[in-house]
């Protein structure tokens, strides 16, 4: 699973997000930011993760600088569609994502936040 996407950058300020599979365990590494222009990429990457049957999916977000509220909603929506017992582990999420998860979905068991 590899989804690569770049917004054509006319002004030099457009959002970019690349998503690629992790080598060491099941899941993906995202680089860039999740906003209006990159939400589709984010959504498709999470759809694939949810479709796969494995118990734990890792999302490596150390190189993601920002996730807006709709992007957090997409993640939560994906996690909710997981069958019981499966979960998404979010590694080193940007502070904005932690803040929205804490504000709107404080006790969601299908998402685990790991700082490593």
């Amino acid at each position, binding site marked *: 699973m590899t989804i690569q996407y770049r*917004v054509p950058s006319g002004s030099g*300020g457009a*959002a970019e997000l690349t998503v690629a599979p992790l080598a060491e365990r099941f899941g993906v590494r995202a680089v860039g930011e999740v*906003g209006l222009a990159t939400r589709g990429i984010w959504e498709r990457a999470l759809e694939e993760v949810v479709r796969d049957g494995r118990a734990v999916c890792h999302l490596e977000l150390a190189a993601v600088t*920002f996730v807006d*509220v709709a992007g957090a909603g997409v993640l939560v929506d994906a996690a*909710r569609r997981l069958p019981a017992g499966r979960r998404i582990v979010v590694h080193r999420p940007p502070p*904005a994502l932690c*803040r929205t998860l804490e504000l*709107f979905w404080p006790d969601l068991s299908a998402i685990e936040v790991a700082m490593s």
Partner: protein
Amino acid sequence: MSASFVHPALFYADEHEYLDGTVPFIREGLAAGEPVAVAVPGKNLALIRDGLGDIADAVRLLDMREAGRNPGRIIPGVLRAFADAQPAGRRVRIIGEPIWAGRTPTEYPACAQHEALINAAFAGRRVTILCPYDVRALDEEVLTDARATHPTVISSGREQGSSAYDWEGVVSRYNEPLPVVPDALSFAFAADSLPTARHTATREAARFGLAGTRLEDLALVTAELTTNSVVHGGGSGELRVWAEDGYVVCEVRDTGRLADPLAGRRPAARDQRGGRGLLLVNLVADLVRVHTGEEGTTIRCWFAR
């Protein structure tokens, strides 16, 4: 017992009138098995807690200076947060005091609109919200507005219908223009410059001393407001950031019109996919002011430094 929403203003002149108007109201609610919450400024909260004695533990007590610092936060974050969490069908009782003498002229229009919009937010619901007003400390204009935002007024222990009741009039009267602030950093954005808009705002806010979670909140708010402009507000807009007293202010202007007066004041259902942008803005900012009309919409947010 009435099935519909009950929303009296309580005009009080001293501590005795305050306690006479609130403590029996709370006791009655508890005796009827109604869940009760009290959100009033800290000093009054202490009075009520002492007045209740042992039964204070049965009441949810909140300092409105904290929970309701931004008036736009009170409906979703305090009133509905409490009312919606109670068993369905049970009448809920709340005391909410959002307006006190220390409210600034900048905050007041948002306070008056909040009081007015409570009527829309709770129409038809089995909820009673009693709103105390300190008649000695507040301006006559504030009391005049309270008569327009509450269908009934309790004064000297007597409750009377308010002939001045007109909450929609208050919402539109305090939809005050927010003139462009000169010398603020300004940035014109469109779809392809949303990240730059956010970076511009956070850089300027950091320069003015905003840090940590507050700076993250400003980044989130900027992203939501600018994205709203691109998606719903004509495709582009203007962002401005400046410092004012102890605050960093972030403002977004576009050519859209905000048609729904309760936008950003409804709590999001857990499984609701989107539509949290303006709610987030209301929950995290210290003050939100909005002006909307034919010529466009301006949303201005204050963050304490």
